[in-house]
């Protein structure tokens, strides 16, 4: 596609953003408690000590069960959080401006 665009333009290509869209054919039925108004904000730190965030809609129950932040803060020892942390170490995920997304899941919390 780039090769076909070049003859049509004087611009110099500096990069390509590829958006991959995928639609589930049979998405099933969400749980009663599911709500996309509720979101999980995950904050990750990268090797440059930057903090990057990612939003997960309609979060499942991976919250801290007790304490002041019960039901609000992501339990970093939960199975979901641990799996996410493992993935951060395994994959070199990048932000849209090509910075390292993060290597450590530092915190997560409910966001409206």
């Amino acid at each position, binding site marked *: 596609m780039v090769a076909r665009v070049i003859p049509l333009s004087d611009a110099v290509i500096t990069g390509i953003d590829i958006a991959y869209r995928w639609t589930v054919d049979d998405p099933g039925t969400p749980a009663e408690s599911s709500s996309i108004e509720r979101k999980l904000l995950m904050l990750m730190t990268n090797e440059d000590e930057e903090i990057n965030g990612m939003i997960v809609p309609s979060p499942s129950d991976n919250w801290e069960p*007790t304490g*002041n932040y019960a039901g*609000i803060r992501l339990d970093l020892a939960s199975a979901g959080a641990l799996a996410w942390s493992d993935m951060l170490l395994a994959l070199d995920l990048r932000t849209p401006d090509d910075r390292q997304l993060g290597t450590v899941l530092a915190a997560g*919390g*409910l*966001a*409206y």
Partner: protein
Amino acid sequence: VPAITHVHNLVAPDPPDTCELAIFPVAAVPFALGALEYRIPRYVWASDSYLRGVQLIRSLQMALLCGGVKEITDRLDNLYRLHAGAIYGTEYTVVSTDPELVIEPPIAAYHSLDFEHENSIMGRMEDSRQLLQNALNGTETPIYSRPDGIRDLLEQLLVAAEAESNLDPEMLAKLAEIAVLIA
């Protein structure tokens, strides 16, 4: 009322960042996190302020999630209980952990000088005090009740030695010297 949710081209303040501790209701955290997300998109910031501005917002979100004052005060309470336990022998019990940690007895405004366990620092010091009183002077204490102290025994020894005519004068002088030293 002017809306502020669709601001753009904000210029982030330069470092250094001064920081403050804040007390906030945890119930407000989800709303604050959500509101701050409106300041994350690139169009909110002037192009050369984007990284800096987003990092400021992310650091505030992190601070909201990591708590602050409550954890510090909890740790101060833990430190108080550690000191009270070590110094006075106060024994604490976890009464419940859900929905929040409750430990008894509660931390009082002040602590009396009375200790609560003989293995505490104050308890051991009191033991040492009584031991010295009894050992040196023969003073009867709640813990120690030997009738004669070292001073009494030395005096008895000196009297007995002086009564003996063939005792080495040098040894006698040393005994007298010891008696003076602990007097």
